[in-house]
C-alpha cells in the first residue's frame, strides 16, 4: 500500500486497547474495555438483551432492531449490538419505549415469516421462536405477508424465503468467510429479499454447498435437502442390505440435541443407536480416511519433484466444498488437486467391491449410506464420476448429522440409556490419523505421518507434525522429510483458501502440499453439523478429535490392520491399477456451473 503518509501514532492505539469505560445498565454499574458495544456491556451486567441478526465480527449491522435499548438523554432508541458503550452512559434494557419497540419489531418480523413452527426443521432451535416466546407474543395484529416460494427441490441446499427474516447473515458468511458471493439482496426497499445474487437459479451459480449459510441462519430459512425418507425406503426393502459409514467429526456433535457431553456422545453409542433402526452394517469412515492417506500420501511423493522444481503444490481433495470452489475459481489449479477420492467416496467404492465380495453380496442390492457433517457431500455422491465399483452410484445417500438427529428423535431413541457397540469388521478400524481428518490440519498431519514412513521406513515420532494444528485460517510449516524441505500450508474457510490460491497463482508463495477444508476449522465446523446459534464450536470439537487421536491404539494410517489387509487381499499397493480405478477420480469429469457456462460460451454456434 502506498500514498499513505507515515504510520499512526502508536499512543493512540494503546489508548484504545487499555482504557475502560464505566456505565450503568438498568442501574447497575459496569466497566468494560473501551471499544466494547452496549450489548457487551449489557451482557457484562447480566442484562440479557435479545438479538437476532447480530453475529459478532461477522454481522454487526443493526438490521433487526430487536436489541434496541434506551440510553438516557436520547429520545430515539439505540441498537446495542453495533453502538459503542460510552463513559457515563445510562442504559435501560427494558424501559416502556424498549418494550414497545422490541415487541412491535418482532411482530413485524413475524408478519413476514411463515410461522408454521410445527413443521419447521429449526423448531426448538430457532432464535426467532425463542425471542417471540420469551416476549410472550401469543397474539399479534399484523396480517401475514409472505414472498413467493421458489426453489428447486432437488438441490442439496434449500432456501425458503417465507422464513427469511433478512438478517443478512447468509450474505455475510458467504461473502466474508467463504468468498463465494452466492447470496445477495435481490430486491430493494419494502420488497427486499435475500436470494441468489442477481435472481439467478441456484443451479447456475457456483455454490460450494459448504452449508455455512445454514449453520449461521437464525431461523429455518436455510436447510439441507432432507433425504431421510430415502433411507426409510431402503430400510423397508427386505432385498436391500444397508451399510452406513460414519464420518470422523460426527462423533464430536451427534449428541448435542440431547445435551450429551463429549465423553458421552461416543461413536460407540451412536453405533448402538443406529443398529436397532435396522442398518445391516455400520462401518467407520476413519478406515477410508486412512485409505485416503495411503493413496494421497503416495501421490504426494509422486508430485513432489514438480513442486520442488517450482510448480504448483499438490492440493488435498477430501473436501467436496473445496473441490467445488477450486474448480469454479481457480481452474488453473485443478490439475494439481489430488485425484484421490474423498474418504466417503473411497468407502463407497470399497463397499460395493471388496466388501460386497467379502460379504458375498450383490453390490446392486447394497444401499450405501453415509453420515456426514457436510452438505456438499450430498452433491458429491451424485457426480456421474462416482460410480466406479459396480456401475451404480458408489454411495446411495448422504445424511447430515442433523438429519440423523431427526431420525433418532423420530424413533424416540433414548440415547442416554444406550451402551457402546463396536463397528462392524473388517471396515471398522480407524487410526488416530483417520480421526483427525475432521479438523483443519488433520489431513495434512495424517498424510505427513504416513509420508514420513513411506520415505524413511520409520514410524514418525508422536506428534512431530503438530505445527499444522489450530484454528488459524492459513497456516504454514516446513518439515524435513529425509533431507527434503517439505513446505506445507493449511487453509480452512474458503476466503482463506481464496487468498492462499491467489498467492500461489501469483507466485508469491511456494508449497509442496496444501490442505484445504471449506468450513472454518474443518469438518468439525461443517455445514451439516448441529446448529448452535451464535456459537463457533469448531475449536472445541477439534480438540475432542485430537484427544481421540492421542489415545488411539494406532495413530498412523499405514498401521491400520484393516488397511493392511485390504491392500493385501484386494488393492495390491497404493496407486495400483485397481486402486486408481476405485479410489481415484478425474476432477475434470464433471462441471461446476461456471465451467459449463464457459464451455457453452466457447462452443461453436449450432
Amino acid at each position, binding site marked *: *500500500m*502506498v500514498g499513505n*503518509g507515515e504510520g499512526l501514532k502508536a499512543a493512540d492505539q494503546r489508548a484504545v486497547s487499555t482504557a475502560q469505560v464505566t456505565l450503568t445498565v438498568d442501574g447497575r454499574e459496569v466497566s468494560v474495555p473501551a471499544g466494547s458495544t452496549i450489548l457487551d456491556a449489557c451482557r457484562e451486567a447480566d442484562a440479557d438483551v435479545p438479538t437476532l441478526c447480530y453475529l459478532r465480527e461477522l454481522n454487526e449491522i443493526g438490521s433487526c432492531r430487536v436489541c434496541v435499548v434506551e440510553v438516557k438523554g436520547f429520545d430515539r432508541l439505540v441498537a446495542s449490538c453495533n453502538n459503542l458503550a460510552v463513559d457515563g452512559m445510562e442504559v435501560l434494557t427494558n424501559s416502556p419505549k424498549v418494550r414497545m419497540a422490541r415487541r412491535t419489531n418482532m411482530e413485524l418480523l413475524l408478519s413476514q415469516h411463515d410461522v408454521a413452527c410445527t413443521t419447521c426443521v429449526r423448531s426448538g432451535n430457532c432464535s426467532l421462536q425463542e425471542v417471540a416466546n420469551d416476549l410472550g407474543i401469543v397474539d399479534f395484529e399484523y396480517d401475514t405477508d409472505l*414472498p413467493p416460494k421458489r426453489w428447486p427441490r432437488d438441490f442439496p441446499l434449500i432456501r425458503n424465503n417465507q422464513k427469511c427474516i433478512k438478517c443478512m447473515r447468509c450474505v455475510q458468511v458467504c461473502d466474508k468467510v467463504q468468498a463465494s458471493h452466492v447470496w445477495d439482496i435481490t430486491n430493494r426497499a419494502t*420488497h427486499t429479499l435475500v436470494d441468489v445474487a442477481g*435472481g439467478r437459479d441456484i443451479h447456475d451459480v457456483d455454490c460450494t454447498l459448504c452449508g455455512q449459510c445454514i449453520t449461521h441462519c437464525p431461523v429455518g430459512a436455510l436447510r439441507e435437502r432432507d433425504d431421510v425418507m430415502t433411507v426409510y425406503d431402503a430400510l423397508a426393502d427386505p432385498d436391500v442390505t444397508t451399510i452406513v459409514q460414519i464420518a470422523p467429526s460426527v462423533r464430536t456433535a451427534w449428541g448435542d440435541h440431547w445435551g450429551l457431553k463429549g465423553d458421552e456422545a461416543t461413536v460407540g453409542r451412536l453405533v448402538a443407536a443406529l443398529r436397532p433402526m435396522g442398518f445391516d452394517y455400520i462401518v467407520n469412515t476413519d478406515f477410508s480416511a486412512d485409505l485416503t492417506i495411503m493413496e494421497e500420501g503416495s501421490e504426494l511423493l509422486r508430485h513432489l519433484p514438480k513442486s520442488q522444481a517450482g510448480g504448483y503444490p499438490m492440493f488435498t481433495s477430501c473436501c467436496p466444498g473445496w473441490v467445488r470452489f477450486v474448480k469454479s475459481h481457480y481452474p488453473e489449479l485443478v490439475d494439481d488437486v489430488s485425484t484421490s477420492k474423498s474418504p466417503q467416496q473411497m468407502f463407497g467404492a470399497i463397499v460395493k467391491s471388496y466388501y460386497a465380495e467379502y460379504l458375498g453380496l450383490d453390490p446392486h442390492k447394497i444401499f450405501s449410506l453415509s453420515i456426514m457433517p457436510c452438505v456438499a457431500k450430498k452433491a458429491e455422491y451424485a457426480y456421474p464420476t462416482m460410480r466406479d465399483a459396480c456401475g451404480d452410484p458408489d454411495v446411495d445417500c448422504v445424511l447430515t448429522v442433523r438429519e440423523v438427529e431427526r431420525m433418532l428423535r423420530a424413533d424416540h431413541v433414548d440415547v442416554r440409556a444406550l451402551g457402546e457397540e463396536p463397528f462392524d469388521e473388517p471396515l471398522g478400524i480407524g487410526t488416530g490419523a483417520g480421526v483427525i481428518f475432521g479438523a483443519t490440519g488433520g489431513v495434512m498431519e495424517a498424510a505427513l505421518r504416513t509420508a514420513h514412513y513411506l520415505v524413511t521406513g520409520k514410524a514418525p515420532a508422536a506428534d512431530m507434525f503438530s505445527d499444522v494444528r489450530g484454528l488459524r485460517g492459513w497456516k504454514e510449516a516446513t518439515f524435513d522429510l529425509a533431507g527434503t524441505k517439505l513446505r506445507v500450508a493449511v487453509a480452512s474457510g474458503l476466503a482463506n483458501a481464496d487468498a492462499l490460491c491467489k498467492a500461489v497463482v501469483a507466485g508469491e508463495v511456494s508449497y509442496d502440499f496444501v490442505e484445504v477444508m471449506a468450513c472454518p476449522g474443518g469438518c468439525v465446523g461443517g455445514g451439516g453439523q448441529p446448529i448452535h446459534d451464535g456459537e463457533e464450536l469448531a475449536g472445541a470439537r477439534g480438540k475432542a478429535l485430537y484427544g481421540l487421536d492421542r489415545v488411539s491404539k494406532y495413530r498412523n494410517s499405514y498401521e491400520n490392520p484393516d488397511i493392511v489387509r485390504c491392500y493385501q487381499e484386494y488393492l495390491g499397493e497404493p496407486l495400483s491399477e485397481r486402486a486408481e480405478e476405485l479410489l481415484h477420480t478425474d476432477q475434470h469429469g464433471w462441471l461446476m456451473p461456471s465451467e459449463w457456462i464457459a464451455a457453452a460460451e466457447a462452443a461453436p454456434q449450432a
Partner: protein
Amino acid sequence: MARMHVMERSEEQAIMDELHAAVGRRLAVSSLAPCPVEFTMAFVDMCSTQSCGKCTPCRVGLNTLRHRLSDVLRGRATMATLDGIERLARTIYLSSDCAIGYEAGAMALTAIQGFRDDFVHHVTYHACGFKQSEKVPCVSGCPAGVDIPGYISLVRAGRNTDAVRLIRKDNPLPMVCGLVCEHPCEMHCRRGMVDDPMNIRAIKRFACENMESDYRPVMAEPTGRRVAVVGGGPAGLSCAYYLAVMGHKVTILEARRQLGGMLRYGIPSYRLPREELDGEIQWILDCGIEARTQTEVGGDELQALRRDYDAVYLAIGAHGDRKLGLPGEDSEGVESAVAMLRAIGDGDTPDFTGQRVCVIGGGNVAMDVARSSVRCGASKVNIVYRRRVQDMTAQDEEIAGAGEEGCELLELNAPVRIEADEAGHVCGLVVQPQIIGSFKGGRPSPRPADTGERTIPCDRVIVAIGQAIQSKPFEEAGVGCNRGRIVTDTDGRVPGMDGVFCGGDCQSGPATVIRAINAGKVAAGNIDNYLGYDHKVGVPVDIPPVEFRDVGPCGRSETKFREANERRHDFCQIEHGLSREEALQEASRCLCCDHFGFGAFRGGRELQW
C-alpha cells in the same frame, strides 16, 4: 352566519405543508439508489393521493396501476403485465380530465418506457437489476469517491492532518476542492432529510487550513518505468501524483507557462488564490515529478513520447474557444473568455478602466469573466443571456456573487450582431429580446419577442459560450475523436494506440474539477496495471469509531464573503472559511452513514484502491 370568511391557515394545513416540505427534502437527496420500479410505484401512489376522485382514469386507473406495479415487484408479473401497465398509463395520460391525472399518467409512462429494461429484469429474474447502489450517499455522489464521513469524523476528532491524508487517498488536490469544488456530494447528503445537507466543501477547506503538521506520502519502490503526462491540469496532476507514489517516474509536459490547467487559466484567483494552487501543485511535484512547461505536444511529439516512455496520458483539457458566428465578431475589442482568463492566469491582467463590457453566456465561465471584468476596472458589466436567469447553468452562488459585485444580468436577450465604429472597434452589441416558451429537449426554449432589436452600447464584448478541445493535431496523428472529444475505452485506453491513455475534459468534454481528478486517478490505476503492477493506494489512518449521538435539527453553517464593495477592486480571496467553532459544529451534524444505514452492512469504506 357570515356571508364570507377570511382564509385562515389551519393547524392541519400547517402540518400538511410541513409534510410536503419534508417530501421535497427527501426527494432532493435520494436520487441515487431507488429501484426504478419501486420508485415508479411510489410516485403513482403519491399522485393518487391528489386525485379528487371525479374522473375514471385518475380515480381508478392510478390505483390499478399501482397494484400492477406491485405485481411486478412481487414477482407475479409476466411480459403481458408490462404491456397492460403501459396501456393503463397511456390511458390515464390521454383521458384524465385535469393535470393531476394526465401529468401522473405522462410521468408514469416516461418511467415505464425509460426503465423498460429494469421492468423486464424484474419480470424475468424476480430481482432488481438496477446496478446503482448507494452505500454512503455523499461518497456515491463524489466522482472521486472521497471518504467523506471518514474525514469529517477526523475533523471532529481534531485530527486535520489525518483528514487531509484520507482525502488525498482519492483526491490529491484537497485545498483546491475545498475552495472550488462543485460538491455534488452535498446534493445527496442524507442530512438534507433532517434539515440541510452538510457543508462538506467548507469542512474540507477547514481541514486543509488547520493541519497540525505537514507530511509526505509513502512512495513505492521505484519501478524504473516512465510515464509522460501531457497536460498539467487537475487530471494530469492527479494521474501524475498517483503514478509517482506507485513508484513510476513521471514527466508532465505542459503547453503553457505554468501548471494548473483550468485551475489557473480558467478559475480567477479571487476564487482560488494562486498561493494555494501553487502550494498544492508543488506538494505533488515534490513526489519526484518532473514538469516541463511551455512544451507543446502535437501529433509528432506524441509518437516520440510513445517511443521514449512506457505509457502516455493525454489530459490536454478544453482550452479552445467557441465563436458566436455573428456579424462583427472579428471587431477589435471582441475576445473569448478563454483568452481573457488565460492572460489573467499568467499575470497579464488587462485594464478595462472606464470601459463598458458585455459578457455573452450564462455559465460559470461567464460569471468568472464578468466578475473579473469588474476587477479590471470596467465601469459597467452586462451579462447577456438569451434565456432566463433560472435557466443559467452557472451555480446560484456565482450568479448572486456577480450581481453583488455590480454585474447586471440581461436575461432573454439573444445577441444578433456586434457593431463597430469606423476604426473597427466594437461600439455596441445588438440583441433581439426573447420570450420564453415551449419546451425543447426538456427545458423551455426562447423565441424572438414581438419587439424590435435594441443595441447595448459597449466598448468590449467577451464571449463565454463554451470551450472547445484542441484535439486536431492528435486526430491527425491517428487518435480517434468524436466532435473534438478524444475517444477512449472505458478504462481510458485510446483504441489502436497501445500504451496511450486519455482523460479529463479532453475526453469527457468540459466538466468539473473533481471529475478531472477522478479521471486522473482512474488512469493512474489502469496505467499501473498496464505496466504490469498492481500497486494499492491506501491510508493507514484509523478512523474514530462512531458514537451514537443526538442528531436533532441544527442549521447548516455557511461560509461568508468579503463585502462586495471591497472585494470588487482586487483579485484576492473573497470567501472566508468556517471558524473552528463552526467547523466542529458542522462536522457534528454528520449522520455517519458509514455506520448507520446500509453502510454498516455493505461496507462504508474503501480502504484502498
